[in-house]
């Protein structure tokens, strides 16, 4: 198989559209592509680009309206069953039976793939040791952490050695440690069993680890190349900027508005700049910004992605933020106006968490966490799946009573006055938690009313939400039919209806594409600048850099608290003079597990 020169996947002029009441969505628009055998091919693109549809088509789950699709030399359209028998497929929502144990799930897949009982023991042993799940074989899949579930899903797809492995966003919502392990499994299978892998991902740093990358957008293929080739196109266009006079967030904001700048992003201590055109004669110059030091840097894969997408005019019906210059200016003004009033030295703590404990039966989800958050800060909660972040989060919002300790939010003790404290809080849940069968307008009406807004004030806030989040054009669309990015905007708007002092965001960017993530952080930064305190959990380590301070948790305890710069500087070494947030996180978690298991 390894030697077959021809492509493992061949698509010719594939088109596929779905008919919804009242409209037709073209999911795949005349796609032709080849995927080579024996390597990892990454499938990337914003939400709604057609990645999942493409993978389902390749798995024989969907039939194209026209065109030819050949996988492993088999015509998918004519012989879907033949394809389904030889590939491994892991859908986005992992197909595990939560009421079966790890072992029983694997047995089921072994049975379905007709694996003789004699061959099973060795295969199980290999998969279990690769995924480090051997100690958990008798645990119910539903009781595994998110990362372990994904590893089990992958193991099930690998029970019968497939020639082609199709993975639909296997690392979404998975913490960095589990992500690293998932990649190790995939790489090991690639080397030892010479399989081919096609995977979609929302993490662009993962795309860099692929051999070949397909960039999709609105049902079309924008480009297919190796990650290096993608980055090569960005030569002379990427720089790192730093200014002692301005905060990172402020500098990022100022730079993003400079002419010629395509994208500006916080990258550890600096701002990562992407220019619209290559700068061949020296460095880009920004006269208005004081004390600016700029030097060239290696392009990230993400830069190429953003550049390609921004070059392709974005149609209105996608999730991508339309760069509305007028609106950009408005946000800018609000930042300039208030930034002077709020100094970073404010000492007033708006959230005080003191030795908080949460017990479920005899299980301690949170074991004595303490920290304080100042007004106007962006405070991050980081941790692997199952570290107790969500539990802590729910206690802070007053959704879950504390077992022991004290939580004070906006001066109110949550034990005695949680309802009063809640009036100061805006909360955006991890999953889309608005009414899917109500329109945007109806959702906003409902939530504003639920927060006690009436009459003119209510009208004002709804109008504000529609303007600020550019929701006007979908006003009467059921929120279930909205693109993911718009759903997220709507949820964000709903959480802000009553102008809360404190905003709780639980993994707000999970599963959201890079463009929508940028837009999201732009809004969050603006809110923080205007004095709103933001608490956020995230799995994206680069996003941790947006936080002023953060706490890293593992199994209910605190590993470290501090600013991103402080935390990263702890792990500076000669081999790694500039550790990233992800390196820091993994080093912290690993040092913790070593302490816990003396060897």
């Amino acid at each position, binding site marked *: 198989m390894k030697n077959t020169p021809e492509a493992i996947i061949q698509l010719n002029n594939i088109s596929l559209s779905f008919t919804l009441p009242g409209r037709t969505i073209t999911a795949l628009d005349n796609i032709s592509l080849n995927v080579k055998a024996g390597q990892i091919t990454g499938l990337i693109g914003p939400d709604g680009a057609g990645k999942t549809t493409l993978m389902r088509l390749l*798995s024989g789950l969907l*039939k194209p309206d026209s065109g030819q699709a050949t996988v492993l030399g088999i015509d998918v359209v004519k012989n879907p069953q*033949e394809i389904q028998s030889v590939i491994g497929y892991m859908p986005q929502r992992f197909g*595990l039976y939560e*009421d079966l144990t790890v072992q029983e799930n694997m047995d089921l897949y072994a049975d*379905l793939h007709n694996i003789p009982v004699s061959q099973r023991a060795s295969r199980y042993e290999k998969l279990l040791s690769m995924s480090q799940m051997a100690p958990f074989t008798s645990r119910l899949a539903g009781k595994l952490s998110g990362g372990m579930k994904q590893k089990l899903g992958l193991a099930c797809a690998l029970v019968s050695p497939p020639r082609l492995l*199709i993975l639909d966003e296997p690392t979404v919502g998975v913490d960095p440690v589990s992500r690293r392990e998932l990649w190790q499994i995939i790489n090991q299978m690639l080397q030892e069993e010479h399989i081919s892998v096609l995977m979609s991902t929302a993490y662009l740093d993962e795309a860099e680890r692929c051999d070949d990358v397909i960039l999709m957008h609105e049902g079309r293929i924008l480009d297919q190349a190796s990650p290096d080739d993608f980055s090569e196109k960005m030569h002379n266009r990427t720089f790192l900027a730093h200014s002692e006079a301005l905060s990172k967030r402020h500098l990022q904001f100022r730079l993003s508005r400079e002419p010629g700048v395509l994208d500006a992003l916080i990258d550890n201590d600096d701002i990562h700049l992407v220019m619209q055109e290559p700068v061949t004669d020296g460095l880009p110059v920004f006269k208005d910004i004081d004390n600016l030091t700029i030097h060239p840097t290696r392009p990230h894969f993400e830069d190429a992605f953003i550049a390609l997408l921004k070059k392709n005019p974005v149609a209105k019906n996608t999730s991508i933020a339309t760069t509305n210059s007028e609106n950009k200016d408005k946000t800018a003004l609000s930042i300039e106006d208030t930034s002077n009033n709020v100094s970073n030295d404010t000492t007033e703590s708006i959230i005080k968490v003191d030795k908080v404990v949460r017990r479920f039966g005899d299980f301690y989800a949170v074991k004595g966490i303490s920290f304080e958050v100042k007004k106007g800060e962006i405070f991050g909660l980081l941790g692997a799946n199952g570290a107790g972040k969500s539990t802590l989060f729910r206690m802070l919002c007053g959704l879950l009573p504390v077992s022991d300790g004290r939580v004070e939010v906006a001066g109110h003790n949550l034990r005695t006055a949680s309802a009063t404290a809640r009036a100061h809080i805006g909360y955006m849940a991890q999953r889309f938690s608005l009414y899917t069968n109500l329109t945007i307008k109806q959702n906003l009406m409902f939530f504003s009313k639920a927060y006690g807004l009436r009459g003119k004030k209510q009208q004002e806030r709804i109008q504000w939400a529609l303007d600020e989040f550019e929701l006007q054009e979908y006003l009467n669309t059921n929120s279930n039919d909205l693109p993911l990015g718009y759903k997220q905007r709507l949820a964000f708007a709903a959480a802000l209806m009553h102008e809360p002092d404190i905003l709780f965001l639980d993994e707000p960017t999970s599963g959201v594409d890079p463009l929508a993530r940028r837009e999201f952080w732009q809004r969050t930064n603006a809110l923080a600048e205007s004095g709103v305190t933001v608490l956020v959990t995230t799995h994206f380590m680069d996003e941790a850099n947006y936080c002023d301070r953060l706490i890293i948790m593992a199994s209910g305890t605190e590993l470290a608290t501090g600013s991103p710069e402080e935390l990263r500087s702890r792990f500076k070494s000669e081999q790694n003079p500039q550790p990233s947030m992800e390196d820091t996180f993994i080093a912290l978690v690993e040092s913790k597990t070593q302490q816990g298991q003396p060897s």
Partner: protein
Amino acid sequence: MNEHTPAPTQQSFSPQRLKGIVRKESLQIIRDPSSIAIAFVLPVVLLLLFGYGVSLDAKHVPIGFVVDNPDTNTQSFIGMFKHSDYFEPQRFITTHEAKQALKARKIFGIVRLRSDFSDQLLSFGEAPIELIVNGVDANQARITEGYILSIWQLWMSRTAQEQGKPLHIPITIEQRVWFNPALKSRNYLVPGLIAVIMTLIGAMLTAMVVAREWERGTMEAILVTPVRLKEFLLGKLIPYFILGMGGMLLSVAMAYWQFDVPFRGSFVVLFFASALFMLTCLGLGLFISTITRSQFVAGEISILVSFLPAFILSGFIFDINSMPVVIQWLTHLVPARYFVDIIQSIFLAGNVWPIILKNCAYLILMSAVFFILIIKKSHKSLE
């Protein structure tokens, strides 16, 4: 790929894959408290409720008596009612009072014995009574009326005998009730209930577990394996078939031992007829699951098209012959109707082959229709 014998994954039917699905489904049933509840707890609750709680018999019915001219004859007449299990006589002085009590629902009917009660009896051998019953519950009104009239006749014939006088009744009503001589409603409710319980397990539980696979996303992963659709469907049918038959056996055992319902037919015949009915229900359940992918909708649809009709239109409580003609036609679409006929006959009358065979034929027809529809409608894809 080019081997002459097809690889195991390419076989169009594999016992191993079927076994895998059956085992997975069984484990899920065992671990899911709601399946166990529907299959075993619910039957027991329903049987106890209908066996002990609901009774369509007229028993201890409060009846008001207004006697214009009390004497030994009226005493003895009312005494008949006192000694009967079916009535609880109450005395009223005036008709007005009795009517008030009837309106207040304290009594169900009024028997008025006029002042000429004894005279008429003596001179004509027939003592007239005036009877008013509350017709709100037509069923009970009819039963009560019948009981009162038969007690009245019984009393008159006894009195005539005692007094050595011939009885002057132009027509004698002689009631003989076959199959259920004690007229215990429990005896036909409990067997009928078994049909309802099996519908619940067969159609509702099955429809919901398939929808659950779609909802949780497990279906998508299962589809992309060598498993064939028939293996998947069969793998779902077998465990639920066993579960449904288990619920049936439990219900029959309770009917026989707990409620002393007579069992006059053959158990083997009942078993095969139940198996046939179970298949029809499973067919209906799987068919519902091909229409919807949401557990909630599947539950709603199956309550509407299987559970409620089994309750109302199967003839288990309400007599089909007294329904409007259009509704009578509609009952022919309810599988439970045929099975209620079968199971009530087997319990109360024995193996009445014409009834059993006719209804089994209907069940075979219905399950065939369901399974053809299922095969036509389901395919291994997401569309």
